[in-house]
């Protein structure tokens, strides 16, 4: 394959990172992530409701949920917990799922990584909690890795010029 010529690209899978500071003690933020009823209160985009959620919070256990979009569309997903260090860190495997808990593909992109490894850290300073979530594909196939790098990593890796063209197009309406 052609990309073998380019070892820099070969190992380029970067993590996707989101950081947020909450004006709340770490213990409270931790509970919001690790107790089923609390997680159900906030997880999911605006307007989504969580209709089903089963949680077994321990390494090897899982959180299997179904959320409903404002249009009524159902979306199943699953976390499988790998590592839990209260109240500092949760490592889990994140994937799309079906009702039975089986893994499914991304509805829009069949080559999107089937499983994503996600590490969430909780750090407290001065009564505030800094939450950092990192994602990367878990054991991706060559195709999955390339899709992840292309769709996400690529955006941050300097094909912003390309996306500026899109922004211009969108601005034109």
């Amino acid at each position, binding site marked *: 394959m*052609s*990309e073998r010529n*380019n070892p820099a*690209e070969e190992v380029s899978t970067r993590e*996707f990172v*989101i950081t*947020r500071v*909450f*004006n*709340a003690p770490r213990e*409270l*933020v931790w509970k*919001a992530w690790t107790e089923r009823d*609390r997680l159900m*209160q*906030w*997880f*999911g*985009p*605006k307007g989504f409701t969580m209709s089903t959620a089963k949680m077994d919070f321990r390494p090897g256990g899982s959180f299997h949920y179904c959320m409903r979009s404002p249009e009524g569309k159902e979306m199943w997903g699953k976390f499988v917990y790998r590592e839990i260090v209260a109240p500092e860190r949760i490592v889990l495997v994140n994937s799309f799922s079906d009702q039975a808990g089986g893994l499914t593909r991304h509805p*829009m*992109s*069949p*080559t*999107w990584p089937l499983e994503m490894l996600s590490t969430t850290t909780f750090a407290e300073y001065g009564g505030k909690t800094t*939450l950092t*979530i990192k994602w990367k594909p878990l054991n991706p196939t060559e*195709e999955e890795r*390339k*899709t992840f*790098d*292309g*769709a*996400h990593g*690529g*955006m941050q890796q*300097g*094909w912003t*010029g*390309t*996306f*500026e*063209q*899109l*922004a*211009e*197009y*969108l601005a034109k309406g």
Partner: protein
Amino acid sequence: MARLATTWDVFNAVAEPQRRRILNLLACGERPVNFIVGSLHFKQPQVSKHLRVLREVGLVSVRGAGQQRLYKLNGKGLKPIHDWTENFESFWNESLDRLDDYLKTLQKREKSNERKK
């Protein structure tokens, strides 16, 4: 946009690093094939193959100008990728907005409970 096959193809098309470099180059403006070959030091048949894929998924368009064929980036074609990446980000950003609200509610409740004691 609703055609799933096209969406799938665009994701595949940009998954190839060399094709991303071609897109980047075309982001600067319309260019002929030999300019792409010369700038990126890829082989001509490879560039032609990549350009064909990019054209098929609507990421570039081509027009003839005399002897040359000029390739141009079609920004609109990137929308499915942009949408998906944005979906992932907005999924989490919106969830964390809700978490923020939820934590505030909890803290308010805690305070008012303390006052009652």
